[in-house]
């Protein structure tokens, strides 16, 4: 059920300890798990092969540490290698020239228009004076869409009808040329140009894009791609790169549940950095790309780092040590559970926190868990109606105790049953954290893992 990749590693690597070093034969099965995980995350088949070979090289000959479990050690090797490959080059935007031009390209429906507005807003926040240029004349109402977004975020948008120079504009090239002239007159320092979606195999439309590049001389050509893209990510990214020379990638729809393996495929097949990820439909839902987090996501190890950062603000060192002791002794009670809930509530919505935990998505699917924010309130009420003994030792909760608690807290016996089950699940999850070492709960409570 709750079987994250690190669980699997632990299983297939449990016999390594005492064998001295990681060898060809003892990591065979673990590598198979890596392959499977990456393929399920939509990393391109060829890329997976290369990656597994690279991990093998990294892992072979490594001493099996006595301090770490081999599973954790291997998890770390895989995760770090993935993060390294995903990251690398500086992801800052290159804004050269006056005006500096950013051009967005990509397949139909990948999210270019929305992303255009997001970048404009981001640049405005950074103190620049951006100008939005809608050069998608093909998709119905695309221009209007961008105009509306521009007015929402209060950024100027080129208007082909009302352009001050009264030019007769017939095509995207005309728009771009005109927009450059307007920018020079008004003094916009950055142009963000949205283009129509197209397939990289459409020679005519790719020709149009090359022409726009000639006119605009952009310092950034960003390839906007859907995080859910499958094996074809390699072909399209390479196709666009070959035709117009992309300078970076933006991954959209990252707020969904796609594992995002396309990130690795595109990064490795083009060598271009992934600069941003889109995390929502609103214009401010744009985030800087964090290789380590995305690595965790591709491997389905959860967004533990994000959780760590958030948790730092809420849990203090002393409490963390306390809690850790309890976890070690396995004496984590419902009382502690309640306390944690109160703290967790400060971290954000339950759903968003849980979804950052390794394996939660799988758990949610398997057990059909619906996260109900009101539930936290209910849980607190239930625990408040328990005696001290019941809180410390929930195993004593027989039927009559349960029905008394239900009455006292204004809930149903089923709610009590559910809570007890959840508590037990949580203890299991804690154990997973505990054994997954540096990146586990221990790290989370103590602050940044080393």
């Amino acid at each position, binding site marked *: 059920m709750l079987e994250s990749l690190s669980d699997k590693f632990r299983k297939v690597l449990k016999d390594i300890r005492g064998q001295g070093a990681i060898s060809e034969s003892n990591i065979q099965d673990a590598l198979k798990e890596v392959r499977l995980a990456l393929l399920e995350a939509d990393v391109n088949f060829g890329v997976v092969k290369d990656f597994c070979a690279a991990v093998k090289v990294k892992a072979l000959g490594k001493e099996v540490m006595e301090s770490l479990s081999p599973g954790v050690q291997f998890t770390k090797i895989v995760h770090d290698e993935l993060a390294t490959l995903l990251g690398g080059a500086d992801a800052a935007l290159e804004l050269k020239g006056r005006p500096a031009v950013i051009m967005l390209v990509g397949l139909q*429906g990948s999210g270019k228009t929305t992303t255009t507005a997001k970048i404009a807003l981001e640049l405005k926040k950074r103190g620049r004076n951006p100008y939005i240029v809608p050069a998608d004349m093909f998709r119905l109402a695309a221009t209007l869409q961008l*105009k*509306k977004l521009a007015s929402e975020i209060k950024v100027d948008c080129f208007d082909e009808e009302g352009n001050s120079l009264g030019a007769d504009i017939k095509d995207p090239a005309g728009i771009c040329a005109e927009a450059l002239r307007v920018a020079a007159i008004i003094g916009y320092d950055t142009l963000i140009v949205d283009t129509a979606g197209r397939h990289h195999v459409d020679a005519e439309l790719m020709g149009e894009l090359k022409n726009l590049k000639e006119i605009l001389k952009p310092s950034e050509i960003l390839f906007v791609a859907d995080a859910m893209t499958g*094996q074809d990510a390699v072909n399209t990214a390479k196709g666009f790169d070959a035709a117009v020379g992309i300078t970076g990638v933006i991954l959209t729809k990252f707020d*969904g*549940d*796609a594992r995002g393996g396309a990130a690795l495929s595109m990064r490795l097949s083009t060598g271009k950095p992934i600069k941003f990820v889109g995390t929502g439909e609103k214009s401010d839902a744009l985030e800087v790309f964090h290789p380590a987090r995305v690595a965790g996501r591709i491997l389905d190890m959860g967004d533990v780092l994000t959780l760590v950062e958030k948790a730092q603000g809420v849990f203090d060192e002393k409490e963390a040590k306390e809690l850790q002791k309890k976890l070690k002794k396995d004496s984590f009670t419902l009382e502690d559970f309640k306390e944690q809930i109160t703290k967790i509530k400060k971290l954000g919505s339950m759903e968003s926190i849980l979804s950052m935990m390794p394996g939660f998505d799988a758990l949610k699917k398997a057990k059909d868990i*619906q996260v109900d924010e009101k539930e936290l309130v209910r849980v607190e009420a239930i625990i408040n109606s328990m005696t001290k003994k019941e809180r410390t030792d929930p195993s004593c909760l027989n039927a009559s105790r349960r029905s008394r608690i239900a009455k006292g807290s204004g809930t149903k016996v089923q709610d009590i049953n559910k809570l007890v089950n959840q508590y037990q699940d949580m203890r299991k999850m804690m154990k997973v954290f505990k054994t997954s070492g540096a990146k586990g709960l221990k790290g989370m409570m103590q602050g940044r893992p080393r």
Partner: protein
Amino acid sequence: MFDKLKSGLASLKAGLARTHNAIMGGVDAAFTGASREGILEKLEESLILADVGVGASGEIVDKLRGVFGGKDPERLKQLLRDSVYEILKDVERPLEAGPSPFVIMAIGINGVGKTTTIGKLAGRYSGEGKAVLMAAADTFRAAAIEQLELWGERVGCPVIRQTQGGDPGAVAFDAVRAAVSRKTDVLILDTAGRLHTKVNLMEELKKVKKVVGRELTGAPHEILLVLDASTGQNALNQARLFNEAVGVTGIALTKLDGTAKGGIIIAVANELKIPIRFVGIGEGVGDLKDFNARDFTDALI
């Protein structure tokens, strides 16, 4: 009529030819001196590269492993074709518009091609002489309403609309009433793109469906999930969650005119058995075809 059908088939095949080449490129290369196991592995790789998924690819190849004894490439091809066709033939069930007004509701994640598919569908039905009405129940995305209205102009169909930011349920309500009173044959509802993981947005979708059902018993008659052929394994999650939320009755697979293979549809068909109604093969009005399992399979392998 026949000509149109033929040219449609031709463009579908052209689109799928790329998929075909990718797979057969793999298969053909595999036959040069490879062992039987080597061939099977190569075959599995080709399926994975077509987004069929590790699970389904493994199953298909395991099945071949069981029945295929030799190394005859032609026989292998045929068997692979048969296995895929076996899965897809059950989901080849073209949409038949029933008694008027027949209500279709298009759903899916952002940008997959819902509005375009609706426009194409409206074009097709009005071409058949049916009275078609479209409804702009995407009140969220900027200019989504205008996009649908422009499609309405293009294919000559009226569009029921309210204002951006309004209640999609209210638009659906108006639309069904209008469809009934105007004796419309087909009503097609556009909905806002939404990620299947957003609980509140899925609730909104349920509500729209409920409103439609309350106004017209049995409606919506078709809940059409639009999937993008370039999507990888996540399409399976999309299908699962949309199906759980509102019960999907048909699928449209768009953007098959690119290099993406759309193989995930095999995994979807395998697991959910939802009929695949249409394939999208371009951005024009005529670029929507009925899904045909034999053509799809023949072009795929």
